[in-house]
């Protein structure tokens, strides 16, 4: 694939344009599919322009953390599958994959959208573990937003299997996973001192700094992560907050629509 150079992307942005003719705060077309993997307790496919992620949720039973003996456990993992990009390499998750996982995890966890206490089977001994695995299948930028959206969609459609005599009965379900809120993570990037949403890969390669802000249904912030090598001013962060609230609402409407 031929990619626009960093300097070209920057020059366009300076002139108020983007490589694919979008407005600065405009997302690419988002397509959402649910329950596409039969063996997963919850799943979702997100297409955000050419970015393609698949999220699967597997439920299992295990031990709780010692500091939260009466709560289920949420584990988010991201695989940057090598078929998604020539820059992805096989092997254990690298720092980029780990950052994506942890930023998405924070948005979900801190919004308290999952009632983890209801996932306790026996205090201190057995709780449900929610394993969220995000597979990036085609990388054209903005993996955090796409992965976070896939995660919440998959969780909203996750069913808890039956648990009998110490064994999980896969394929037979007890109830839905209790999800009380819909947190949405929105990343805003700074290129040539302008702020943009939903960067594609070419734009990501040209960014100075980025900030991801997750908001809940009440338009409160629940997680934040600044990234990239450059800096942001307070004014830029305030603008990013406003964009996150606005875009979060838009995407939540797509989800509910």
């Amino acid at each position, binding site marked *: 694939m031929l990619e626009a150079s960093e300097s070209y992307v920057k020059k366009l942005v300076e002139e108020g344009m983007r490589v694919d003719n979008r407005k600065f705060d405009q997302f690419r077309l988002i397509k959402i599919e649910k329950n596409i993997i039969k063996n997963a307790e919850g799943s979702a496919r997100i297409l955000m322009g050419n970015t393609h992620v698949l999220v699967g949720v597997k439920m299992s039973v295990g031990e709780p953390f010692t*500091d939260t003996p009466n709560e289920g456990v949420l584990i988010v993992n991201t695989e940057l599958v090598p078929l998604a990009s020539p820059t992805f390499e096989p092997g254990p998750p690298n*720092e980029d994959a780990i950052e994506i996982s942890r930023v998405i995890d924070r948005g979900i966890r801190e919004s308290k959208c999952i009632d983890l206490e209801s996932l306790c089977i026996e205090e201190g001994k057995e709780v449900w573990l929610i394993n969220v695995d995000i597979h990036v299948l085609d990388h054209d930028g903005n993996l955090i937003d796409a992965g976070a959206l896939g995660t919440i969609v998959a969780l909203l459609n996750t069913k808890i299997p039956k648990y009998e005599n110490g064994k999980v009965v896969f394929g037979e379900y007890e109830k839905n996973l209790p999800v009380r809120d819909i947190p949405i993570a929105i990343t805003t990037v700074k290129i040539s001192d302008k702020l943009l949403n939903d960067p594609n890969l070419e734009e990501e390669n040209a960014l100075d700094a980025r900030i991801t802000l997750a908001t*809940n249904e009440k338009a*409160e*912030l629940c*997680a934040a*992560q600044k990234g990239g090598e450059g800096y942001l*001013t307070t004014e830029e962060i305030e603008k990013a907050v406003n964009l996150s609230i606005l875009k979060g609402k838009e995407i939540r409407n797509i989800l509910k629509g």
Partner: protein
Amino acid sequence: MSKIGKPEKMVIDGKRLDGRGLEEFRPLTVEVGVLKRAGGSAIFKFGDTYALAGVFGPKTMHPRHLQDPQKAVLRCKYSMAPFSTKERIRPGPSRRAIEISKVLNKALSNVIFFEDYPKTGIDVFVVILQANASTRCAGLNAASLALAEAGVSMRNLISACTVGKLDGEIVLDVGGDEDQFGDVDLAFASIGNEDKIVLLQMDGIVRKEEFLKMINLAKKGCAEIYEKQISALKEKYKTGEEDVGSE
């Protein structure tokens, strides 16, 4: 949802559990040049949180395929000593440590003149010897001082601190139980005392107005940290001159 062992109130009459005011740091300890072998080193403490940073380089980058012919490459590694917390930490990189190493690297990258050192690598090691919240900020403060002592050309220092929300109040420098039981925790770093934010990570639910208030308090905090860093550096070089004179 009450957490186990959570005190009923975290703020009483404008004072926190350890007696601090809302906008007050724990005692700060800053010391530059504490290791002999490293090119630069520093200690930074927020109360009981104890971070040590050491810098090696700029030196020839190995492995060579990671060399950049135009500029230096920064490698940053944050780790916690196994005995630094109540429950022992397994040695080796955790996902948390890998993420923190990445964000510290990006924060420090803002101030280093990489073009001055082509083909080289600069290694920054941050070790948390004792943890009592705000470890990444303590580590970042120490790392930026260690880079300065190593003589790496920089446009400024990086100054970092945390802010939090306890019982609805915005507080500076989250410490101890506040980290575990507080509502919100925000790690923040800026280029010196400038309005240039290079690290920001937050967990917990806040309204927009509170979030902006937290950032403003963090900026004030960083300005205070910056003063301390500058005076620690001056202190170091004051004694340095005397040593040269007496030899």
